[in-house]
């Protein structure tokens, strides 16, 4: 996990960096303009609700949660379900969106208590909420994993998810998305965090309730994890023994490679779920939050970084042990790399477009030319930057990844964190810079600012492809993804 010096360094730097950002989030309360302050206060309840939803959705997507080690490496050892549950809970914060939402929640107590109330009290309630939501989300996810082990269970889960999605869409269509927030516990949490009364029964009751919920979630989650892992998986759930429709026709070698890589993504349950969540969630969040145009420039970066983390940071792992056989075929090795870049680009562009369009449609204001240019350039630049970073990581730091099960990840946890920091840091910087460039109202400014980043991204991608041309580098990639 931390054998690489750069990953080791990133892991050492990340926690203090997050702490600094949390401090900055708290300190930002004092210098806010009144209109921004008002917006932050009104966004408090949706932020708490959003965190709670993410705490459930993220482990659900990951089939219960992340694993410290792949299941096939642990199968011979007596690992208790409670250990497995605690491991997945410990790894839950190693998620880009979780950290970003944590930063938002860190700022909220400072905003809510700026004009009265206690930051310590508000912070305590928020911390209890974060812990209870994360543990509760993991517990629910493990329960759903267990339910999904049978055909009936899978139908029930799919039906429930479809109903929830449909309900959310209907509410959004009717313009009553706010009702969802009002019906949730989020407004009560906001009131408790911002309370000015030290003896407020709401604060005491809610904070204690959250602590109890956290403890109960820990206990129930451990049991749910054990139950889910003990239940036999029926044959249909594996999906490996189904026949796949045969493609006919005479495609070029590149198109054939692209088709196989596309299949490798969509036939891996972890990647398929991740891609679907990426396609739906950011768009829904952007639409639900009705983000103004001036802030939309930050959205493509977040989505592109998520798409890159799906498999792009270790793109050659799609070939698995077949990489050895593939390397023995007579072809230009650049084709293999190009096929992976094409599939990665498809996923990033689709996710970014969906999120940007959903955000643009629901934006409360009409865009200026500069804002439109910033969003378009942000989408383009972040896509190119993510592809460049992913290609560099794939060539320089390959990992073996089977991606057979829903909990399998494309890289070990440490490498994932390091890649998240790189991708999120770069794209956040691009998004913020382009967002800020709309200030003067000149549409050429975002274009001019994006141009050098675009050039860097293209040059970096070309350099990585050239590095992959080196037989020694390629052989290392092939040997690592094939066997570890």
């Amino acid at each position, binding site marked *: 996990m931390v054998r690489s010096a750069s990953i080791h360094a990133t892991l050492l730097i990340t926690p203090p960096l997050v702490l600094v950002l949390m401090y900055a989030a708290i300190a930002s309360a004092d210098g806010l303009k009144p209109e921004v302050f008002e917006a932050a206060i009104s966004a408090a309840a949706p932020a708490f609700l959003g965190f709670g939803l993410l705490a459930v959705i993220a482990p659900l997507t990951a089939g219960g949660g992340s694993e410290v080690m792949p299941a096939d490496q642990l199968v011979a050892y007596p690992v208790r379900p409670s250990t497995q549950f605690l491991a997945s809970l410990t790894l839950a914060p190693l998620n880009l969106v979780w950290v970003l939402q944590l930063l938002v929640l860190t700022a909220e107590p400072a905003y809510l208590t700026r004009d009265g109330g206690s930051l310590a009290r508000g912070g305590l309630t928020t911390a209890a909420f974060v812990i209870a939501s994360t543990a509760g989300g993991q517990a629910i996810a493990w329960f759903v994993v267990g339910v999904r082990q049978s055909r009936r269970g899978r139908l029930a889960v799919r039906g429930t998810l479809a109903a929830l999605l449909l309900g959310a869409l209907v509410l959004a269509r009717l313009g009553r998305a706010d009702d969802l927030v009002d019906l949730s516990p989020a407004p009560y949490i906001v009131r408790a965090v911002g309370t000015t009364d030290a003896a407020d029964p709401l604060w005491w009751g809610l904070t204690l309730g959250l602590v109890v919920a956290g403890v109960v979630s820990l206990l129930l989650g451990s049991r749910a994890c054990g139950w889910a892992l003990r239940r036999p998986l029926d044959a249909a759930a594996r999906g490996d023994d189904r026949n796949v429709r045969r493609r006919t026709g005479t495609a070029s070698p590149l198109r054939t490679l692209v088709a196989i890589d596309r299949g490798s993504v969509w036939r891996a349950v972890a990647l398929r779920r991740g891609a679907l969540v990426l396609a739906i969630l950011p768009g829904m969040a952007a639409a639900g939050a009705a983000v103004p145009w001036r802030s939309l420039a930050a959205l493509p970066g977040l989505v592109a970084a998520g798409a890159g983390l799906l498999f792009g940071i270790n793109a050659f792992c799609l070939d*698995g042990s077949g990489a050895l056989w593939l390397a023995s075929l007579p072809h230009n090795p650049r084709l293999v790399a190009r096929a992976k870049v094409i599939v990665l680009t498809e996923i990033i562009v689709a996710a970014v477009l969906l999120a940007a369009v959903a955000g643009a449609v629901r934006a409360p204001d009409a865009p200026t030319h500069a804002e439109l240019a910033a969003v378009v350039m942000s989408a383009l630049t972040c896509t190119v930057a993510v592809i460049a970073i992913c290609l560099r990581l794939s060539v320089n730091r390959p990992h073996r990844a089977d991606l057979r099960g829903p909990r399998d990840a494309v890289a070990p946890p440490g490498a994932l964190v390091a890649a998240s920091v790189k991708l999120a840091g770069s794209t956040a910087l691009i998004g913020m810079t382009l967002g800020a460039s709309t200030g003067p109202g000149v549409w050429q400014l975002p274009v001019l600012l994006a141009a050098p980043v675009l050039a860097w991204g293209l040059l970096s991608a070309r350099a990585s492809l050239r590095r992959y041309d080196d037989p020694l580098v390629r052989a290392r990639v092939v040997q690592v993804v094939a066997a570890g």
Partner: protein
Amino acid sequence: MEPALLAEELVVDFGTVRAVAGFDLSVGAGTSVALVGRNGAGKSTTMRVLAGVLPPTSGKVRVAGVDATHDPAGVRALVGYCPDVGGLIPRATAWEHLQLAARLRGMSSDWESRAEELLHRFDLTAAADRITSGFSHGMGRRLSVVLAVFHGPRLLLLDEPFDGVDPLGVDATLEVVREARTTGAAVLVSTHLLHLAVEACEEAVVLSSGRVVAAAPASELRGDGGRERYRALIA
């Protein structure tokens, strides 16, 4: 006449570890050679070098007169390789593997009939459109052999082709090895199953610490006496 495979002074270093230390071998057309030796003797690494997957640190490989350093793609076109570990793209079907091989090798349009015939011989017809991550170990080995012989290679490299394979699969593999030899291909088989190595090959070379330490007719390694001799060679 140029041998089908000529390897001279092959050296492969992984950092400070020398995996192959001056490997020399010449295999004539229509000849099959068993590559045997202990774990870590350098068999699979040597196979990877001969397949063009891994560039050697130094040394020379020529396949049917084509130099691997100057024309690696040309060598790959002549070689059929069954790797030791899996060797299959996990979420591609058996048919998609054959389709990809046909496209990258530029095979003529009748590749489908050849593919179907091989799948039938290796009892994989029913599994042709299943993704290979659902295959048993033996099925995977059988498909790897199919992929290696698919295009009628001039040099057939089979690394542990019998590992976990049922008797019918073993028979099918032995049959394609015989056919390859008949058509003038050189065959190199790496395996720990000495009796199958003896059955598949005419000659045997013993590897130890990355170099050939003995070579003999495979028949000399047959039976109890052959096993004792082999043990003495690798000890």
